[in-house]
């Protein structure tokens, strides 16, 4: 199959993904157009002026198309060869932002580059981490059934994630959990996932229930399990120790760890958003960071509200079954939803096209994701497969979290909707992710190392 390797880029590339990519990007431009549309000005002239977001996004798309073509013309081996170097330089850039970074919207994660453009290394790191992870797992000497490998992979993911938290980019940090998909596919034991999931449930329960009540419930559960094992306990003392230590960790989490994280690690607005998602109020006076900034600025802390989510739900809900129609969304035109052309772009689709529109839109995304999984499964080389699942994970995480936050299923974290949200950086990242995958897929018969 060497002929495949030598050919022009169109051969072996998955056309369906390219079509879906273009379709989504166009829907994105249209959605941004709906947000920015102003009936009092001629849209053609404002489009040509290049000052509106939708015209900018259009030019971003043209630029990204060139990048895509460029990637497709590259050699697949470049990616395996450069994976580790790219990852290392990505991490270096992220560290560099702490020194030469520029603060935009409260997060110091941007490096200014020529021409007024800014680079967000954390975005690039998503690609580099995916490549590096693929490279690591695909090494012949890596045995991904071993715990040691899991820990190394976990560390690779955690490094950029932690750096992102340091840059006040919680959303970006969370995205790194998406690599779990790839790791799971390569043999990460489900037990780890179950433990992590139980832990998540425990944290949510902590927020919802009274800590004392929860401690009692946990104790009762532990007691019941002890009863269940009954006689075997006498023979095997280890079970008692395991159960007791799990119980202690759970109660410790409930009573100390979770309050500590919410009050000392997270920002006040994070805690508030998470609490408000669960329908509860968070008292910001408990938050150390808020208290510190309060002492610093001397200003009274304003009670943050869930205005964004409320307006976003209103906009989507008011679409009804058929929607209000193209350019007829009152909430969109009245600019009620903040950040509507970036993080809350889904609301403009939801309001204009209603349930029919959102359902179709989600269908497109689902088709896209399943198509990527199909591509992943047809790879011969582990490198390509791991990379493919990383792309699936990143896309899925972005889609799920972004849409969930606009409809009130998830706390508001600022992550864009892939290919739809306005923003050149984000569009470029997703373009690169997809087209590198397409390049690798075109060489699926090759075994890349």
């Amino acid at each position, binding site marked *: 199959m060497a002929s495949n390797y030598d050919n022009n880029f169109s051969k072996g590339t998955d056309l369906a993904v390219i079509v879906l990519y273009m379709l989504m990007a166009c829907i994105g431009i249209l959605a941004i157009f709906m947000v920015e549309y102003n009936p009092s000005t001629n849209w053609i002239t404002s489009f040509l002026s290049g000052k509106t977001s939708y015209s900018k996004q259009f030019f971003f798309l043209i630029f990204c198309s060139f990048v895509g073509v460029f990637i497709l013309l590259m050699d697949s081996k470049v990616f395996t060869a450069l994976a580790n170097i790219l990852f290392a330089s990505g991490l270096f850039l992220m560290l560099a932002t702490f020194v030469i970074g520029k603060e935009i919207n409260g997060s110091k994660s941007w490096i200014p580059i020529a021409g007024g453009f800014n680079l967000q290394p954390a975005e690039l790191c998503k690609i580099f981490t995916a490549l590096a992870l693929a490279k690591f797992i695909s090494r012949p000497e890596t045995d991904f059934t071993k715990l040691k490998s899991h820990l190394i992979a976990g560390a690779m993911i955690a490094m950029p994630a932690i750096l992102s938290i340091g840059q006040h980019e919680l959303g970006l940090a969370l995205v790194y959990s998406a690599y779990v998909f790839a790791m799971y596919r390569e*043999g990460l034991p489900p037990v780890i996932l179950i433990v992590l999931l139980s832990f998540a449930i425990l944290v949510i329960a902590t927020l919802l229930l009274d800590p004392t009540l929860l401690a009692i419930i946990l104790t009762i559960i532990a007691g019941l399990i002890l009863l269940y094992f009954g006689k075997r306990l006498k023979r095997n003392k280890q079970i008692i120790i395991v159960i007791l230590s799990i119980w202690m960790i759970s109660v410790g989490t409930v009573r100390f760890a979770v309050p500590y994280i919410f009050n000392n690690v997270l920002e006040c607005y994070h805690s508030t958003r998470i609490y408000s998602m669960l329908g509860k109020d968070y008292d910001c006076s408990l938050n150390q960071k808020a208290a510190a900034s309060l002492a610093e600025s001397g200003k009274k802390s304003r009670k943050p509200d869930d205005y964004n989510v409320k307006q976003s739900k209103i906009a989507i809900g008011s679409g009804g079954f058929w929607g209000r129609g193209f350019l007829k969304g009152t909430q969109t035109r*009245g*600019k009620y939803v903040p950040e509507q052309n970036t993080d809350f772009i889904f609301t403009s689709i939801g309001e204009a096209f209603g349930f029919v529109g959102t359902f179709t839109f989600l269908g497109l995304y689902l088709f896209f994701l399943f198509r990527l999984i199909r591509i992943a*499964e047809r790879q011969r080389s582990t490198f390509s497969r791991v990379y493919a699942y990383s792309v*699936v994970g990143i896309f899925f995480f972005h889609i799920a979290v972004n849409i*969930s936050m606009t409809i009130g299923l998830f706390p508001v974290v600022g992550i864009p909707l892939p290919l739809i949200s306005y923003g050149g950086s984000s569009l470029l990242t997703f373009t690169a992710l997809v087209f590198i995958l397409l390049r690798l897929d075109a060489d699926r018969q090759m075994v890349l190392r």
Partner: protein
Amino acid sequence: MSVYNQNRGGIIQIIIGTIFFLIVGQLVSLQIVSNKYKLAADNNAIFRKIVYPDRGIIYDRKKRALLENTISYDLVVIPNEAKGVDTAALCAILQIDKAEYSKRIVEAIIKNTRVKAGVFEPFLTAEIYAQLNENLYRFPGFSLSERSIRSYPYNTAALVLGYVAEVDVKFLKEHESEGYEMGDYAGMIGLEKNYETVLMGQRGVKRFLRDNKGKIQGPYEKGEFDTVAVAGKNLYTSVDVQVQQLAEKLLQNKIGSAVAINPKTGGVIAMASSPGYNPNLLTGSQRRKTIGRLLLDTSRPLYNRAIKGQYPPGSTFKPLGALIALDEGLITPNYGYNCFGSYGACGDPRKCEHHNAGHAANLQLALAYSCNSYFLQVFRMAIDNPKYKSAKGGYVKWKEYMNAFGFGRKLGVDLPSENKANIPDTAQYNKDFGNPRYWNSCYMLTLGIGQDRMTATPLQLANSMAFIANEGYYYTPHFVDSIESETQEEAAQLAPFRKKQKVTKIPKEYFDVIKEGMHDVTVYGTAAFIKVPGHEYCAKTGTAQNPHGKNHSLFVCFAPKDNPKIAVAVIVENAGYGATWAGPIGGLLMEQYLNDTLTKESQLKADNLAQVDLMPQAIKNWYAQHNKSAYLTPIEYNNDELSDIWDMEMLSEGVVKTKTKDTAPPAPLPNTDKTNKDSLLPNTDKKKRLNP
């Protein structure tokens, strides 16, 4: 290894599918199941502006407008935009201090929030309007808003017309489905209330799209859902503004009431209740200071005595008592009673005003001289009628007649809260005297001369005259004859007024006798000295005893005798003889209506009567104590010839006045020639007297 974990790709697909399923589930709940988001969205983005239509106008029988609409201006403020206001200048123009300024801003915020316009100072006078208009650029956030208010060019019929006022919480609760909102105006009493739905018209709603900062973006859906305001409909009443003014004028300085009805239609020609007030005092900027004083006044100027006052009819009842006895066959027109100045058949003798023998030799004479003994006897015969076996049976029958004549029940006039007055029930007598076996006609003897517990409203008395004038039927008294471009629904509302109420089967000849007797009253009887130039008329005087001081003076009449066009009832409280006070008032009212003018002589008489002060001492004392003589001062009634001058006068008083539905801004103060004005207006100190 890839083969080894192949199934995990499927699991990942399942996980992704599940999450998407959850998202779709939430979308179903948001977009399909719940409609609260749609409402919330409309609340957010659609600004409803209510367009108020002009209220309907009320005309008198000659199409003279009893009330009109006038444009007044309010100073409104949007608190959030009121920054950098030259408060000192504004306070100086409005003559308020800074504390008052901040108080009003706070009030506006409480009432209408920070972002909506709230009233800062309502009903600006022309002078202040002009000053503000010039200086408005110095007061950001403030603007002048137009509003339509009522004005009453004839200064008359305040209680009949009623007033409009801002709706309160209670009103909103009672009219929940009718779409009123806080700050709306609605008719509160009188015709304004009764015909509220007709007069108010249909409010229009304009919808605008607004953005998150409350700024209007443009019409919503190009105005597809907007509704147009439909102006209120005009009412055409049977009121004669000149008779109405005369009635009010004649009742000045007295407590009482006068009602005039056109027997041919039941249309009320005039309805006066005294003390009254100038309806213009309850509009615009004057309302605030007037309403409280009117409510507190001990003489109750807001109490419409014509439909709520309960008076013993006294001798004015006698024609009806005779009708009952005639119809029951108990007496003939020739029946006579030998009265020597008192009636003693029930023990304790009852006085009669006349002593000469033969003054009650027949019904006609007895009516003319108003012989008490005669009608006491006739009443007893009706109650003790052997046909009904017991006094109770006779009484029930008698009460039946009374109810048929319109007494003891609501007539159904088109004014709110009419009183039914009282024709006592047998139950009341049973309660007082025990078992009906134990009481007889002597127990309630004075019912026969319109006393005892019998009471009637002036409207009921006037209606009974219409009944006699028509010889056996009446039309339900009403004001509104027709509504502009009447719909079926509105026609149905007016239908009861257009139906002849034939309530008894008393034959015509009995009415003829009664009419002759009542005519004799005006020829040689108790009202012989009261004349209506050019017309023969029928009347009955009444002097009713009452437990609260001097006798009430009553007078009922209709004219002309042979083709009655007007039936009148007049009551002057605590005044004395019916013929002395109520009688001349009734006569003048008939003259004014039938001749459309008063003779010089009558005019003089009217002026004199208007000056006579018959206020009970207790009320005068109250005024003295509370230092509020203002309400005793007469209202200046202008008429057609003066209406042009009135316009100028209103301007000079500061009430911005334009002609009906004229939306032009008010002209600046006209340079009226002071001397010229004085010569035309007899009372230049009117303002001073009305607003001391």
